[in-house]
């Protein structure tokens, strides 16, 4: 059986599905602007269908990978990245069932496609067994939590970025801005606001970003603690300031700062959101810089 190969092919299909979905969401926006309302609806629905199809292929890819390697499919950076992207798409789909968030489609698909593209090329590793240190049921608990939180943080990072853009646009086009920008405001208004006008209000985006962080943050906290329990079993101490541990902690602090900033006068809104983006940057350092540049005990990257 060439299950590993099946997994790789399914991943390509998933990327294709997501990329086409991205085009669909873009078309929805374009039709919407040209007042082709019914076409916009069709494009949006097709895009969602493509996302679901891509998601199905993605799940298939992960599952077959697991069977090919006879273990959980999150043992190296390639598999990890694939899972994080899968969670991000899942979070988006779950949000879709609760709230009108189709506008997010293209903005979630873009980083997911990029992420999977990088994962499948630069980070790719063959399906192999785990080293004994990773062979524990805590890998299931700790890593699943870390992946889940990361996928959600990714979605919230996308929403936060949109929030910052929309917020700037709202302030620029608000009545009473300086005379120098009047022409720009007129231009924006005349165009119906373009993409920015199409996005929901900044406040809605801010709240959505918060909701996703409010989901991800406890999961991330749990991931760190489960990691500590695992470390206690594997390395005889629950915390040792290993670079991976430290960057997870820094990420945690950054998101805690974001949550605090939302309740701090003068910080809520834009400044708080910048903290959330810094948190996401820390997360990326935690995964990619720490695994490849800084070496520690968590050297399971599988990239050589």
């Amino acid at each position, binding site marked *: 059986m060439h299950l590993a190969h099946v997994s790789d092919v399914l991943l390509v299909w998933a990327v294709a599905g997501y990329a086409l979905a991205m085009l669909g969401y873009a078309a929805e926006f374009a039709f919407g602007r040209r007042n082709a309302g019914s076409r916009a609806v069709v494009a949006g629905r097709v895009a969602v269908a493509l996302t679901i199809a891509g998601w199905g292929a993605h799940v298939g890819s992960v599952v077959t990978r697991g069977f090919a390697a006879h273990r959980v499919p999150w043992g190296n950076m390639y598999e990890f990245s694939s899972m994080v992207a899968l969670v991000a798409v899942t979070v988006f789909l779950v949000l879709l069932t609760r709230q009108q968030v189709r506008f997010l489609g293209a903005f979630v698909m873009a980083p997911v496609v990029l992420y999977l593209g990088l994962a499948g090329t630069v980070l790719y590793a063959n399906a192999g067994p785990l080293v004994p240190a990773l062979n524990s049921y805590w890998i299931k608990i700790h890593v699943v939590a870390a992946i889940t939180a990361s996928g959600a943080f990714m979605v919230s990072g996308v929403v936060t970025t949109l929030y910052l853009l929309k917020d700037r646009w709202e302030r620029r086009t608000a009545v009473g801005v300086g005379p120098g920008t009047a022409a720009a405001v007129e231009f924006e208004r005349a165009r119906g606001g373009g993409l920015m006008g199409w996005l929901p209000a900044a*406040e809605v985006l801010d709240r959505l970003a918060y909701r996703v962080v409010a989901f991800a943050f406890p999961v991330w906290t749990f991931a760190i603690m489960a990691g500590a329990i695992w470390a206690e079993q594997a390395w005889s101490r629950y915390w040792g300031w290993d670079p991976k541990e430290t960057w997870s902690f820094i990420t945690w602090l950054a998101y805690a700062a974001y949550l605090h900033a939302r309740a701090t006068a003068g910080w809520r809104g834009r400044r708080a959101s910048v903290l959330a983006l810094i948190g996401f940057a820390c997360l990326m350092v935690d995964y990619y810089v720490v695994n490849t540049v800084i070496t520690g005990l968590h050297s399971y990257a599988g990239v050589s």
Partner: protein
Amino acid sequence: MVLTTTEPASDVRESEATRLSTAPLARSGWRHLTSMRTALLLLTLLALAAIPGTLLPQRGLNPVKVDAFLANHPHLGPFLDHLSLFDVFAAPWFAAIYLLLFISLIGCLVPRIRLHARALRKAPPPTPRHLDRLPVNETWSSGLAVDDVVANACSALRRHRWRTEVRTEPDGGVSVAAEKGYLRETGNLVFHVSLVVLLAGIALGGLFGYKGTVLVVQGQGFANVRSSYDIFEPSRLYSDSQLSPFSFTLRQFKATYEASGEPRSFDALVDYQAQPGAATSTHDVRVNHPLAASGANVYLIGHGYALHIQVRSPSGRLVFDSDTPFLPDDGMFASHGVVKVPNGLPHQLGLTGFFYPTFETTPLGPRSSFPAARNPVLSLAAWRGDLGLDSGVPQSVYDLPVASLHHLANRQLSPGQSWRLPDGTTVRFAGVDQWATFQVAHDPGKKVVLVAAILVIAGLLGSLRVRRRRFWLRATPVDDGDGARRSVVTAAGLPRTDPDGFRQEFDSLVQRMKD
């Protein structure tokens, strides 16, 4: 009056203090503001302070790398060292930040706990006069009398665990004030208190624990007394009474490998005794699977080969018969070791050896091509002279002072083979055994940390998932003159945290009250 103002629809919450009464509002508001600012600042500072600890080598993690860095940067190195940048997580400035953070946290928690305790006992706040000015509201007329409307409303609210308070108003109307989601602040407080407890638990472990490492050869035993350890690291307030009197014997060590030589599994079977005279039980100590030994944990942290070597004097007397641990030099377990035979022979005898579990010759010399003992070969060199054991200078069991010894001969041996030295002494490679190193760690703060960690998460879930909201209803009697008892009802709601989903909740509540 506070209540009738529409709150910003964001998730921003003010502390209870700011809304309970007007007088201390400014003061407590200020305090709240400053303490949150402080927390924010300190959280950010702590994150920044941790970064150099991941970029520069740290003594606690890798002292060798630190030395190398110091050697390569003769000017920068000592300067960084002076700033404790190679011991970031033990640095005074790092401690200062987190201690300040926790002092600020405690200072902010005490009043918040008091306020919340009071809020928990208090009835929901009175119904604002102009309910129709609240962001979510609805007015309808009901065919029921005021009392029935109120009774219905209360039962609908209580069924969903709202806290309710019925008040009769001067104009004959009756109002219901309800609030829900107190668990949010409870959770938030539990979260922050647990953080403090967690830190206390870490400190407890750091002050009273111990850690030690010991090498045990297959078939041999270990008793948990300080002198049994090869390395022992007590904490600051450690006393020997913390060593629980357990012991174990390494019955068997088993390692399996992938075809590539990558390790697949390690198992150390030990016969464990909780205290002298207690029943013996057998445990499989593995990576990720320590042995829980009365308060301490025993971890498998390394392994290697111990070579059974026998030495007989020229007259045939057995003068040395022991398993000697060899230290691995590479992933294929090519190992080195030393045998010292100070007594029983005409001269003191020393042997230096290289061991290859799967022996192979290459143009560059012998090497091991696989970590398991598939084709074990022991390559020995024999030395004669004063081994220096009586010199009073501490000696490593893995070193021989060869510079001052006389080289006799070299020989490669397979298990079972003997080697006769020129003076008639025989060295026999009797067999290959294995050893394992164990780390014993005792951390008395661990349980505290674990419980605090669980509460941290529970508190966090309450704090981030529960939404605090208020609901009011006012029913006023309508007198049409025909004696029918009817009422006009106005309901309003206020999400005090995340407003998403509040509209639906409000609508379904109102729907239930109308039915």
